[in-house]
């Protein structure tokens, strides 16, 4: 049993840190980011945070759309 847990941990650790994120992952991250931005009181800070969310989304999808 302990051996299987160890093998599982090793398998997860072997996934490269730069593995391609999925679009669903990008969309989920965008929704979460918008949620956080919506909780900001100041209009301008909220607007800037929303823009940051979209930039993060573009960077996330860039990996699969043009990454090598």
């Amino acid at each position, binding site marked *: 049993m302990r051996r299987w847990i160890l093998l599982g941990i090793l398998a997860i650790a072997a996934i*490269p*840190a*730069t*593995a*391609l994120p*999925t*679009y*669903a992952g990008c969309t989920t991250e*965008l929704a979460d980011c918008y949620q956080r931005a919506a909780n900001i009181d100041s209009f301008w800070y909220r607007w800037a945070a929303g823009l940051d969310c*979209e*930039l993060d*989304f*573009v*960077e996330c*999808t*860039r*990996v*699969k*759309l*043009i*990454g*090598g």
Partner: protein
Amino acid sequence: MPRFLIRSVVLSAALTMCGCARHADSAVSWAVRFGPVLGNELIVGHVVAERTAWLATGGNALVRIDLDAAHHTRVSLHPLSQDEHVWGLASTGAGDMWTLAGRGTLAQLNEDGVVVRRIPLDEPHVGLFSAGRELVFQVMDFKPPAFALAAGPPGGATRRPWSSMQTRNLPFNRGAVAALNLVSCGTTAGALTPCWFPDQASLTLSDRSGASRDIALEGLPVVAPEVLLAADNPRRPIRDAFVTKSHAVWVLGSGEAPAGGDSTRPGGWVLAKYDIEGRLFRRARLPEPARIVLGATDDECVLLAWDGRVVEVRL
């Protein structure tokens, strides 16, 4: 009978000369040269200088591949902060390389991977390429249509529109439109740099001054933009392109894995060669997928295979 034979020979020769007989998928020779030179890592930029290729990876590494010596070296890019990741790779001359550190810093690199200069950028940048001794930038722009690319010296305040590529107003949300307007540029052995949008089967070929022309490419499967955005492993019409000194255009596309082929392997299955007008000369399905083009002549194309090996391909 002899007349029939002569007619067949003449027709065959005519078809061969005009290239009409070469449109169908042709046989491909696939010769592994060396490697692997890279693991299962994201490639965020590449530069080709003569017979040497440089790759930047999502894990902040710089890989130098010497195609003649069948040798590669790898260095870590440093110093970079813990949450800083590079994107893009451009060269403005021997040993002068540049990348984007995050989206707000232009970083100059030496061949040992040392960040020797950092230039803060006023706007978020999403792409970096080179044209001769100038850099070509893509700034994040949520308001299409606009020139997609601008060129200027590193650190220079003045930039000018470069190439005729314009961002497109598409019927999707702002983030998706911005993503579909991201530009990729391939490499060149001459003066014409090929660039493209992720959903299109056409190239814009630009010279160093930015003068450009569009060529549509036949024989590359295209998928709808929404499908491209939604797929985990999207079938991109063009994954990479290379223009030779004498203007042969090699294009690597996602294509489709053959029956029984492993479609989860990264890379594209279709390699095609065009002339400068976009006329298809030859096209082949590769026996294994390839990730980028490392170099090419009119007869031969050197590819980075899905597993990091360097492969010579002839169509």
